[in-house]
């Protein structure tokens, strides 16, 4: 566990150096370079040590490239001073994530994510141009809210996640394997006791419509299989989600009512800081 701890600590220190100062103080460019180098060393070390791939060489290569692009895009989204840069790096995060979706065998989701988030990012651009850019570089973009504590908390959480992942990975004994059995195997295991509650839950969650393969063991076509399970097993979910979209539309229209009284007495941005 020493190597991942050191790698995560390096990444945390590097990210802290890349974040804005808490009072918006200027940092020399050298510190930025050191921070970027530390974060890069930590994250590349962690990912290259613990991403494992088998099968064709190209899919392993793409897995590595997409993972690195996603994580670096994430770091740069969080640490960029300009919201336009943040939005652009967030686009790279989205594209890498859709690449990972493709590698995991979810092409419909990859296409859907690109379509949905392309619109979302363009809207974010419009908002940045409308709201942020007319004041020029804002002071609140160059100052962070308690960056040290936030970095410590978040990377502590990351260390806990990596620790639990790796401590499971090291355990190839029978007990360790049993901990992550696919539920369809539990269904086969409990079939002798049809009244057992675990069996009823697992068999309800593992109907034939929700599996990748049909009864003969052939793989279903992707979108057809997804649509089959979406409109049989998850019909109520689909209806609820549709209702939720409609409610969100009504809510968004309601809270941006232009006739509301605007600008009551209260603190506004200090004028010296906006420039």
């Amino acid at each position, binding site marked *: 566990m020493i190597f991942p701890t050191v790698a995560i600590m390096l990444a945390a220190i590097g990210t802290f150096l890349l974040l804005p100062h808490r009072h918006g103080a200027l*940092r020399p460019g050298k510190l930025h370079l050191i921070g970027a180098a530390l974060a890069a060393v930590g994250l590349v070390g962690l990912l290259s040590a613990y991403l494992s791939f088998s099968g064709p060489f190209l899919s392993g290569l793409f897995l590595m490239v997409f993972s690195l692009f996603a994580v670096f895009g994430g770091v740069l989204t969080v640490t960029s001073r300009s919201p336009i840069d943040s939005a652009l790096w967030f686009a790279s995060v989205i594209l890498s994530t859709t690449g990972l979706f493709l590698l995991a065998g*979810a092409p419909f989701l990859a296409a859907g994510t690109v379509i949905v988030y392309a619109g979302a990012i363009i809207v974010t651009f419009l908002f940045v141009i409308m709201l942020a850019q007319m004041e020029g570089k804002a002071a609140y973009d160059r100052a962070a809210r308690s960056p040290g504590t936030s970095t410590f908390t978040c990377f502590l959480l990351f260390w806990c996640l990596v620790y639990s992942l790796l401590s499971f990975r090291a355990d190839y004994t029978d007990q360790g394997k049993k901990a992550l059995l696919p539920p369809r195997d539990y269904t086969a*295991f409990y079939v002798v006791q049809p009244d057992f509650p675990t069996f009823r839950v697992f068999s309800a969650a593992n109907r034939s419509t929700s599996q990748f393969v049909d009864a003969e063991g052939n793989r279903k076509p992707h979108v057809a299989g997804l649509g089959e399970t979406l409109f049989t097993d998850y019909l109520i979910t689909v209806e609820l989600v549709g209702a939720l979209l409609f409610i969100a539309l009504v809510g968004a229209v309601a809270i941006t009512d232009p006739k509301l009284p605007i600008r009551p007495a209260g603190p506004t941005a200090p004028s010296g800081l906006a420039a």
Partner: protein
Amino acid sequence: MPAEPEILALNALMNYLLVGGALFVLGMLGFLARRNMIVMFLSAEMMLQGTALTLVGFGRYHGNWTGQVFTIVILTVAACEASIALALIVVLYNRRTSLDITLWREIREPELECPVKDEVLEREEAEEIEPIPGPESYPQLTPAGIEPAHPGQAWTERRS
């Protein structure tokens, strides 16, 4: 007898969990540490992306569509969240003429003590900073003439 899970499938799942966890943690960092509301919104979206990655990885590991269906639900909830969040950002911007989230700190419970020291006090306590040329300093241009008279109300202040 339950079949043994393949070690290779387990390793593929680990890849997705690792990257998904990293994206989630980075999004959380951005949400906690940044002050620009638009960047906070992007960070929240990044946390959703990390969760979606883990769900797709688990769905592939278990051999069913559940993870992908969950991710579709996450996509629609993210769309709802985006519409509401951007509408809120417009309303909050109209009230304070700024995207700074720290201007809204008085809406917390009044009897609760502030866990972080007040930033105005902090700013006053902090020593003067000499600008150093670097990535965070911006060029200063000299004004090239007399500033013309502005027509009445600026368009940002017009409300009708």
